[in-house]
């Protein structure tokens, strides 16, 4: 009310101003709620009772069951990247550098980010929908009545599993991508797998692999916590469940890019200077 009288004489401007204000307020509310949810995760994660068996089950569901999708996309990614790079490399007479170039691109950036985005699509949406559906059908309340802390059982286990499984998946997807790249090279040339890997290893340094691996833990955490947050506070009804799953993917994907940007800046600051 105060804002409407403050913002000028034209009614259209008032409406626009209030609408912007509402959007900004909703965004800030969302960020605040997510921050509180994350703080609660860190409080609960160290307190007993520890849900080891559910955590192990979630590692299986989140990690192992994502392997086929991640592996397939990684293979295609490596193959296509090599085939797309080759004409330019041939033009400059440096096609021998394809293994080095592809390996650096995959290990540093493409592997972690693409895998994390696929992971967000599969796991973020699945966690959001599962917890949302449990909220709507009162299963989370039933869990609480059954002497279980649902936050610990559902949120802590899934977030931890996502945090730990994504780096494992990225390492595997990087390896599969490079294998795809070797096949891409062999479509036009003949290069042994041993020689291909020797070139890859020779051109990769610790500062290519370690920061990339560290940022994967943050990507995994973002996917897990956002999926759980969206599902845990899902609004009533099936529409709410769908919306939770959808917004979990969108929000997690945006976080992955923001974290990637931060990771590049921090890596440059810490590693190169």
């Amino acid at each position, binding site marked *: 009310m105060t804002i409407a009288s403050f913002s000028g004489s034209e009614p259209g401007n008032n409406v626009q101003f209030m609408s912007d204000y509402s959007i900004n307020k909703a965004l800030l509310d969302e960020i605040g709620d997510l921050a509180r949810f994350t703080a609660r995760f860190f409080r609960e994660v160290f307190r007993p009772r520890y849900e080891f068996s559910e955590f192990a089950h979630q590692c299986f569901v989140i990690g192992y069951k994502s392997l086929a999708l991640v592996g397939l996309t990684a293979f295609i990614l490596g193959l296509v990247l090599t085939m797309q790079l080759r004409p330019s490399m041939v033009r400059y007479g440096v096609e021998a550098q394809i293994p080095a170039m592809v390996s650096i691109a995959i290990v540093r950036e493409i592997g972690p980010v693409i895998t994390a985005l696929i992971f967000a699509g599969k796991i973020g949406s699945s966690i959001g929908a599962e917890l949302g559906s449990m909220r709507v059908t009162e*299963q989370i309340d039933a869990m609480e009545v059954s002497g279980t802390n649902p936050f610990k059982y559902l949120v802590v286990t899934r977030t931890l599993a996502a945090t730990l499984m994504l780096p494992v998946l990225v390492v595997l997807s990087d390896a599969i991508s490079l294998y795809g790249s070797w096949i891409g090279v062999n479509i036009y040339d003949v290069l042994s797998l041993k020689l291909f890997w020797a070139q890859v290893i020779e051109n990769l340094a610790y500062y290519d692999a370690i920061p990339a691996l560290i940022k994967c833990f943050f990507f995994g955490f973002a996917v897990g916590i956002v999926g759980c947050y969206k599902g845990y506070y899902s609004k009533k009804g099936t529409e709410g469940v769908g919306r939770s799953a959808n917004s979990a993917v969108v929000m997690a994907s945006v976080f992955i890019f923001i974290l990637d940007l931060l990771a590049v800046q921090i890596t440059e600051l810490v590693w190169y200077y």
Partner: protein
Amino acid sequence: MDTSEPVIIIKDLCKAFGSNVVLDHFDLTLYRGENLVVLGKSGSGKSVLIKCIIGLLRPDGGRIEVFGQNVPELRYEELDQIRAKVGFLFQSNALYDSMTVRENLEFPLRRHWMHTEQKQVDELVHMVLESVGLPHTVDMMPAELSGGMRKRIALARTLILKPAIILYDEPTTGLDPITGMEIIELIREVQQQYQTSSLVITHDLKLVRLAGERIIMLIDGKCYAQGTYDEMKTSTDPKVRAFFE
């Protein structure tokens, strides 16, 4: 069994969601072994009432004493001990979709009685499934069961901890008349077999008539009237009569 001993005493319970006052100084007493029905129209705050009793919602004011302990003041561990003695049958059944019937029944057991041997767990699972007449469903998934069967399994999950009190949240809602009747029979059988006290919230008059020893009418957030079914039915109060006409 001392039927004059109160197991739940609610005094001046208040709960509002924003400006919407749902419970306004509501009072209720449930005695040991009693079947008490809280009758009220949809949206009158019945579900809010039992969610406050079990500690799923925090009241704005008033006391909720369950076995002499004031629920809103309890710590998480103390509340868990109370919850082990109070069963809750959810309106939507709230069976865990990803678990079999056996796992659904074992879940509260494993949580409250952590050191129970597997043999004893199996016996309890079999016993409660026998009680609800569905021993053959033990390895089925909830999605494979009909609405009435799911309600029975949810009741079996409530019974497995041998609660002293069972809270029923609209147990016949969404069921066909025949299945609804079976559930009403089951509620009565369970009370006799397990000697539980029951608090049933509903707007189903058949359930009120057949299962309610005493009835409380929840109108405008208050305990508007109480008595037996016959007393309520013959009441001249227009708000009470509105339910029975």
